[in-house]
């Protein structure tokens, strides 16, 4: 019990939760609140979170440091072997894996909820789920998947790769980095327990006044998103500081791998917008707990204000999810096409243009909300303009593979699959940015199909591409290539079979977030449901491949793909603190086809 660890974290969480619950109840009683439960559970969560973080060892060192007891702070590279993944550690590579595995677990959990919903929708007239349970499952599926898409690539691959790629020994603030990870498990537990607290009937968007009238489960949603947001802000600060301060000698801005640029762009967006979401949710919480009436029209508030604030974060959030996906794909394509990245500078400029434009497009979610009509036109134009920098991603991808020598290994297949699926997501986005078509299509399954093609077609395809591509680096082992290709084929086909029919379903009048299927769309919905199970099967194949390879796959070389970026120039897996000898960067990251072309000196770092 003296050492921080999972057990102490759980006990700390329980102790904090008990104390917080007592404090919350006491406060509610003293304040003569009608219902003490919301205060009790607010106390349980907030103090439980602090207790958990204290127990796991995320807070102690800072207090020791503040108290001048630096001698008490031990280096925390964690235990050897598998155990380090279950402990507080400051090693960015371990934290990256923790992010990846945690977000994958929740990807599976939220995916299983989707399967239950798809069964319900495929059997018209069924009563597998009642309306309330269906809506709760749908809301949790949406909220958890949004969180997964936000943190899996950037938190997982970003943490693992960014320091390695720029030649740093770790992140700029390793303890902050660990803290931002360890905030997430309590938040995940909270949202998953909302069905036991009255459910969640307001979707992942939680529009008031409905969200101010729903039971305690809605409050769980609020605390979950605030926690994920806080974690995201800390992560963004850390990425930016690391990028700005810890690049190896010679790593000028034009020699930085494109994935790093995508994480930088993502971090700027997250840093600017996430605090707005947190503030919005705190206002919603104040409405619920203290009758603050920010958004309740019955007491002088404005529900449309909430939508402006919510989408000011939540549309840029799409780019927080997607831009690291762009970066990962454009990082992987040159390696397996054996060609330099096409139009590198234009891509970097496009990422930064996306940062700026993402801040001024939010109201395209609100064309039918009742906002002033004069806003619709400008937001339509600005939203459509963002397809110009996004289009550059396609130029770069296609320019890179054209005339290349393509190795169609599993990560490459996923990268090519990304190009194929994300173009559908991008093109259907124009229909939803255009006012005359959006008025018809918004709030229907056309939107559901569209955002699955963008978020899944971009971020999740990029996540699979990244896991396959960097798996040999992370684990030092090779996965089964044949099984990987089969898994990709099944995933690609099942993905399209599951979501392409939903465009048609939406055009034929199926509304979002409803638990029944219009009669004329039953056939298409059944196809989608069957394909959803094939999608699940392919995820199962992926898990089997990865788990088996990690446990007893053949050893992988340090640089099995013959790539140039820095992470491939150290051992697989890389040692703690990454580099044993000083690194000097002497050229661009993709010197493919250039005789004697070098990215780093010395050639061998091991």
């Amino acid at each position: 019990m003296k050492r921080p660890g999972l057990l102490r974290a759980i006990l700390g969480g329980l102790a904090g939760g008990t104390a917080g619950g007592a404090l919350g109840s006491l406060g509610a009683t003293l304040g003569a609140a009608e219902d003490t439960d919301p205060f009790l559970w607010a106390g349980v969560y907030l103090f439980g979170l602090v207790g958990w973080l204290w127990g796991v060892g995320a807070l102690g060192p800072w207090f020791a440091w503040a108290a001048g007891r630096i001698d008490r702070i031990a280096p925390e590279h964690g235990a050897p072997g598998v155990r380090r993944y279950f402990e507080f550690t400051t090693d960015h590579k371990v934290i990256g894996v923790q992010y990846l595995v945690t977000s994958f677990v929740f990807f599976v959990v939220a995916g299983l909820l989707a399967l239950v919903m798809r069964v319900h929708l495929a059997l018209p007239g069924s009563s597998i789920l009642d309306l309330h349970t269906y809506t709760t499952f749908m809301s949790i599926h949406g909220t958890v998947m949004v969180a997964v898409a936000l943190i899996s690539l950037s938190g997982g691959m970003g943490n693992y790769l960014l320091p390695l790629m720029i030649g740093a020994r770790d992140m700029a603030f390793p303890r902050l980095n660990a803290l931002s990870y360890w905030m997430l498990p309590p938040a995940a537990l909270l949202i998953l327990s909302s069905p036991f607290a009255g459910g969640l009937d307001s979707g992942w968007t939680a529009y008031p006044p409905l969200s101010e009238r729903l039971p305690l489960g809605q409050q769980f949603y609020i605390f979950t998103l605030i926690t994920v947001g806080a974690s995201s802000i800390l992560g963004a600060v850390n990425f930016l500081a690391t990028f700005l301060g810890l690049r190896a000698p010679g790593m000028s801005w034009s020699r930085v791998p494109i994935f790093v640029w995508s994480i930088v762009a993502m971090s700027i967006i997250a840093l600017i917008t996430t605090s707005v979401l947190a503030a919005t949710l705190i206002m919603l919480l104040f409405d619920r707990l203290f009758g603050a009436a920010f958004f309740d029209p019955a007491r002088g508030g404005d529900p449309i204000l909430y939508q402006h604030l919510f989408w000011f974060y939540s549309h840029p959030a799409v780019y927080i999810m997607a831009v690291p996906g762009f970066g990962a794909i454009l990082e992987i394509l040159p390696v397996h096409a054996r060609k330099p990245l096409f139009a590198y500078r234009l891509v970097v400029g496009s990422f930064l243009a996306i940062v700026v434009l993402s801040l001024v497009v939010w109201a395209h979610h609100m064309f039918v909300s009742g906002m002033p009509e004069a806003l619709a036109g400008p937001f339509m134009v600005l939203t459509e303009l963002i397809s110009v920098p996004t289009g550059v991603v396609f130029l770069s991808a296609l320019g890179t593979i054209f005339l290349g020598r393509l190795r169609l290994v599993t990560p490459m297949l996923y990268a090519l699959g990304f190009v194929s699926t994300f173009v559908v997501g991008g093109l259907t986005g124009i229909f939803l940015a255009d006012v005359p078509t959006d008025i018809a299509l918004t709030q229907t399954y056309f939107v559901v199909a569209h955002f699955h093609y963008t978020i899944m077609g971009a971020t999740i395809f990029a996540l699979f591409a990244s896991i396959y591509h960097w798996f040999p680096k992370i684990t030092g082992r090779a996965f089964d290539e044949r099984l990987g290709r089969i898994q990709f084929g099944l995933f690609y086909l099942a993905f399209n079979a599951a979501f392409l029919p939903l465009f048609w379903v939406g055009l034929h009048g199926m509304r979002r977030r409803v638990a029944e299927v219009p009669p004329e769309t039953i056939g298409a919905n059944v196809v989608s449901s069957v394909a959803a199970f094939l999608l699940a099967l392919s995820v199962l194949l992926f898990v089997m491949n990865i788990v088996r390879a990690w446990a007893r796959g053949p050893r992988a070389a340090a640089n099995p793909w013959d790539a140039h970026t820095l992470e491939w120039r150290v051992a697989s897996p890389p040692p703690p603190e990454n580099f044993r000898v000083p690194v000097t960067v002497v050229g661009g990251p993709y010197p493919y086809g250039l005789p004697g072309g070098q990215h780093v000196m010395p050639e061998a770092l091991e």
Partner: protein
Amino acid sequence: MPVARHFAVIGAAWVIATVAVTAIVLNVPILPAVASREGRISDGAFMTLLVAAIPVFFLVHAVLLYSVWRFRARTAAGDGPPIGGHRTLEAGWVAVTLVMVLALAAYGWNGMDEMRSGGAAAAQQVGHAVAGAAGLPGHGELRVKVIGSQFAWRFEYPDLGVKSVELRLPKDRPVRFEITSPDVLHSFWIPAFRTKQDAVPGRTITLLVTPTAIGRYAAECTVLCGAGHTVMRAPVEVMEPAAFDDWVTKQRAAAQQ
């Protein structure tokens, strides 16, 4: 093989696929029946965007599939040519996408203005045709108050003195919906009309629609309004103006009894 040959093959495949699929798309009914003036504008915009999207889709897939087929490495060794970019191509790509996007945005803005005009011209045209029947006020727009509440719709015709749980509308007469809610957000949508508008508590928001086809439809809620959201719908019927007047007369008589 010179680069020009690659481009020729890709270009040919692109043109063939684009022309073939565009021909199919224009000759197969993709959208369900439409029943309003505004819906026709929306459907026209949908088809325009679809036709604009097809060449983009096939350009990306033509280069993608050609590269996979033609540039697949058959031996392990060797890199491709060190081409890091192409200034003219990059500038051209950005310029073309920018022009396309601005053209589509201008087209969208135009359609938006047309939808919002509420068929003012149409109102003048049909005003005389529907006037005077059964002594009801028949000129210009028909005002209908739409009240969405958890989990049902109510309709009021303030100029006609009718309240109803079903929506009846005369064909070809512009309707001014005044939409509101006493509780939470809802959204008023008749799929065959295409247009929709949120019902916001504390506000009354106007939506102008001119029904153009006789038939039975449904008004549905499209903003998640609680567990009963799924079942929040009301019957809608677009009728001949004379039949509508009869219905109004009967409703009034029933209300007076």
